[in-house]
């Protein structure tokens, strides 16, 4: 067992974990944060995307011990859910119906937030490229891309108003 201390969704946590435990397992099984899902378990699909120190990573491809001393944000920590709030990108996915079954959605949203942080005004092509590590088996991606573009518009409208 290895002791880790980190911040997850704003809260300090401390645990003894097996070195082989994946970050996604730690989030789901130890912390109960099942909003982060396991899709492919091969680091292909991006459903398990979270932010590590502010940038997107696939949490099935990071060991929990590698996050010692660092900060993790999951889909559950994007907005203050207890207050019934949604992050603007979550709101946009709802508005544009950027999902069908919803399984890929947590990862899609976490990657979209990262993409917009780096490039607040992406073109459609830049959205498609920036989201290439996230697979959706239902939608054909059109509404997901619309959701990200809509979120970009909303955010810039909000910033200028």
């Amino acid at each position, binding site marked *: 067992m290895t002791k880790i201390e980190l911040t997850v969704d704003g809260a300090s946590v401390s645990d003894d974990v097996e070195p082989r435990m994946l970050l996604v397992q730690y989030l789901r099984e130890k912390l109960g944060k099942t909003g982060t899902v396991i899709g492919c378990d*091969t680091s292909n699909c991006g459903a398990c995307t979270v932010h590590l120190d502010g940038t997107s990573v*696939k949490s099935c*491809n*990071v*060991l929990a011990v590698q996050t010692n001393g660092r900060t993790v944000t999951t889909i559950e920590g994007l907005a203050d859910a207890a207050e019934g709030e949604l992050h603007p990108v979550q709101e946009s996915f709802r508005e544009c119906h950027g999902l069908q079954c919803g399984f890929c959605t947590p990862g899609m949203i976490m990657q979209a937030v990262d*993409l917009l942080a780096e490039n607040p005004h992406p073109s459609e092509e830049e959205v498609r*490229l920036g989201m*290439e590590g996230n697979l959706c088996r239902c939608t054909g991606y059109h509404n997901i891309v619309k959701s990200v573009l809509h979120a970009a518009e909303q955010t810039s409208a909000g910033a200028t108003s």
Partner: protein
Amino acid sequence: MIPVEFDYLAPASVEEALAALGEHGDDAKILAGGQSLLPVLRMRLNAPEVVIDLGGIASLRGIRDDGDALVIGAMTTHHDVRDDSLVREHALLLSKAAAEVADSQIRHRGTFGGALAHADPAGDLGAPALALGAQFVIAGPGGTRTVEAADFFVDLFETAIGDDEILTEVRIPKHTGWGAHYEKFVRVAHQWPIVAVAATVRGSIDEARVGLTNMGSTPLRATATEQALAGASATEDGVRAAADLASDGTNPPSDLNGAADYRQHLARVLTGRAVLKAAGA
């Protein structure tokens, strides 16, 4: 699946890491960004008893100007290589190739040195490193040595790094102002290339360097193409004869993505495209 059990060590310095490697030898595996190693461990294709994580060694990260070369720390991520202003100015080819590695999430974790040490012949950084004449700085129990790119890649997943050694940094001779392009042919987005070509040129065209990805058990340099490109005009007709030499001496794999002769055809076509784009044509 999850990996089999292992002990985890997080050394704070290269010296500590080398000591751990010396103690555990063959039973240990170095963890850099983990984007290739963790899938291997999860699929249980490898089961080291000890994993030595270099993630806590700050000196292995970053890019610095060292006169006639850039020095890239082995633990610098693909994301940081892609965006670095020094790399864009002096080794644009690396920025272009780093941008094509896997996807955004993987580029945030995967490292320049880790990918080169992994030496996957379908990896995106070997061919550009070879084309740019990279020098690999390797630390071991007896000190540090430097290996030229031509001697670094030995075979499939095999490099000149010894069992008791660690790749610490890579020196890239400056190619200031050279145009560059990495032409990657994939079946689906964010996958390994079936074939890719790394090209960088001075002028249009005074000099050229061309590397090939996935055209053999190691990255390859298309030297005949490079020689034929010196003085060529940056037009389709001007580069065709040189591009047609790109498959000479290659020994690509045949697999579900394509037969060897198809890959050789791709290498010739993609070389033409890569060179023209690198020349801004």
